[in-house]
């Protein structure tokens, strides 16, 4: 017996036809909607590609034979609408008078100690200064020098620059020259531009407050949208303590007694503390490195097991061991160098407003920092002048492929 018994004549057929017409409409709509959605996705992707190219968000890098991106510093500046700075005409005039009077340097203390006797010639010092200092910090000679007496320490900027130069060579000597690397991979040099990128003041806390996306939580903390602080997650103005963010005063990358950076080893074992906060922190530090170097996770990691230094087929992940080395350098900068940089306002005082270093500070979205140079002059290690590291951080025991 049908449940429709007693229905008005024709009602069942009318209801059936209604259902069928709805289905036909749905099918047509489904197909049309799918085609339109696919079209929209393609159109938006193409548009975004254009936008990225338009605003220079695409890296125009070349790969060297070791597979490392290289970015041209001049192009990098051009993309921000800048040109590398040149010594001013006034400064060049003053220099020509100075070099005529003093063909040998008067008071050069750092370059000649790290790069050799060659830098006891004023002309060679000028060449170095014009090649690296001026474009690096975006300032002409008079920013630091008294043009009437280049040897004088009248301007505090010169004192700061000297301390920075010592730091540059010490970091080069201790960390960059010792980075574990595959045979054939070129070694780059830290110069002023590596961190400064054409700006004299670029990494202090007041800038940080106005450009949080550039800084993030220092020391392996997080830049960019992933940073919980940068997206403004606070409780009454204070970051919730249940999310134990990396404090600016401390670095994410901490060494244990064996020189291992255990902070990044979050995979559980019997010694891993309960809770996921360490994992959260680790992941934010990793996202920081993603964006700071413009790479995906598998640039350093084997996707199947992030803890491993080799992939399933035995390929050694050099970038992972290199990143570990660089994190230790970052720690060195934060602990030993930034805290003893003299203040520009008063060179007898220490800077107290620097922001902590992080990967983005130099890398700016590229594997090789745009301001890193290939520099072929011999390096004379071991002569340190005014400032020394506060703490003698041990070099990491490098993790190398099994022979």
């Amino acid at each position, binding site marked *: 017996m049908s449940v429709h018994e007693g229905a008005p004549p024709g*009602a069942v057929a009318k209801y059936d036809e209604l259902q069928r017409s709805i289905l036909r409409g749905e099918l047509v709509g489904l197909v049309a909607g799918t085609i339109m959605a696919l079209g929209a996705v393609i159109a938006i992707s193409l548009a975004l590609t254009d936008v990225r190219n338009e605003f220079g968000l695409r890296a125009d890098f070349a790969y060297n034979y070791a597979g490392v991106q290289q970015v041209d510093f001049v192009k990098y500046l051009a993309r921000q609408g800048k040109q590398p700075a040149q010594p001013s005409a006034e400064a060049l005039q003053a220099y020509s008078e100075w070099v005529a009077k003093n063909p040998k340097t008067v008071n050069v203390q750092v370059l000649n100690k790290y790069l050799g006797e060659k830098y006891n010639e004023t002309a060679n010092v000028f060449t170095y200064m014009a090649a690296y200092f001026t474009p690096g910090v975006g300032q002409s000679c008079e920013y630091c020098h008294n043009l009437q007496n280049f040897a004088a320490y009248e301007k505090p900027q010169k004192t700061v620059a000297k301390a920075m130069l010592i730091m540059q060579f010490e970091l080069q000597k201790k960390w960059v020259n010792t980075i574990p690397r595959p045979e054939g991979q070129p070694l780059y040099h830290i110069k002023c531009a590596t961190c400064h990128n054409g700006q004299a003041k670029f990494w202090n806390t007041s800038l940080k407050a106005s450009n949080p996306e550039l800084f993030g939580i220092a020391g392996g903390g997080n830049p960019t949208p992933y940073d919980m602080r940068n997206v403004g997650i606070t409780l*009454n103005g204070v970051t*919730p303590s249940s999310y134990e963010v990396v404090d600016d005063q401390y670095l994410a990358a901490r060494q244990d007694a064996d020189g291992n950076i255990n902070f990044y080893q979050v995979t559980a074992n019997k010694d891993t503390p309960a809770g*996921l*906060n360490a994992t*959260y922190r680790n992941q934010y530090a990793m996202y920081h490195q993603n964006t700071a170097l413009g790479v995906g996770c598998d640039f350093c990691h084997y996707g199947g097991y992030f803890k491993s230094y080799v992939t*399933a087929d035995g390929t050694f992940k050099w970038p992972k061991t290199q990143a570990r080395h660089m994190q230790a350098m970052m720690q060195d900068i934060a602990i030993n160098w930034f805290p003893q940089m003299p203040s520009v306002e008063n060179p007898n005082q220490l800077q107290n407003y620097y922001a902590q270093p992080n990967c983005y500070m130099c890398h700016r979205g590229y594997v090789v920092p745009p301001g890193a140079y290939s520099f072929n002059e011999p390096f004379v290690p071991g002569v340190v002048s005014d400032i020394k590291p506060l703490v003698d951080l041990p070099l990491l025991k490098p993790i190398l492929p099994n022979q």
Partner: protein
Amino acid sequence: MATEVYREPFERRTKTVRYLKFLEGLADTQIGPIYLGMWGALAFFSYLLCVFITLIGWGEQVGWNPIRFLRELPVLTLYPPPPSYGLQIAPLREGGYWQLATLFLTLTLVFWTIRIWTRATANRLRPMVPIAFSAALFLYAAIYIIHPIWMNSWNEAPGHGLAAILLWTNHFSVKYGNFYYNPFHMVSIFGLLGSTLLLAMHGATILATLAYNSHREVDEIESSDEGTHRAQLLWRWVMGFNATAHSIHVWALGFATLTAVAGAIGVLTSGPFEPNWYLWGCRAGITPGIQASCPPVP
């Protein structure tokens, strides 16, 4: 109208029935009667409290600024207490909000399950729906309650927020090696993909038989040479065998519950029984390639 013929027996029971004609293409347009009852009321108010507490926590985080609230909604999160609190009750702003919200969320789900159970039995139905819902409840309990208790830290549980559950998924996988190598996760994915496949096959089959009055299920099953017979013939032609109108639903329920139950077992075994699923994969010999990434066997 034929539609009214269908609904007459129900209409006699209640006067609260409404019809939403504009939804005709989407579903049955009858709204109501709805039954509240004690368990429904408890579930409702418990859920209200959970939402209220969550909103308070989120509101405090954005300084009660509605614009910031909307802007940051995707990442706003009530975090569980930090590991230092273990399983203790934490101050409100250090995870106490999360504990309260989770308590009421759990109560809501339990009350809701009981509510489905009582309504099913009151309607003289077998309690298959509450049983199916319990599978999801088990997965919830495993993630939010049982696993954190076994690990002695509420910090192991996900926060409450849109991004939070995605982050937890990633971080939980990272912490326990690699969840893709968790065999229970594999089974859970099998259930997930299997149930979507079954759902698609079933839904398409029913829609395919619309011309044979499959929207009038009872009639159609009773008559020969109607939709069901043709649909079953279709699958015999395609696969060599077919489900029955009964067994297809058993399959669907089985696969769907398998997803949640296997997932829950996968969560529960992570930590106390296997801290690192990748290493387990190495031992089990299921890692790809020549396994250079596996630690050497001692």
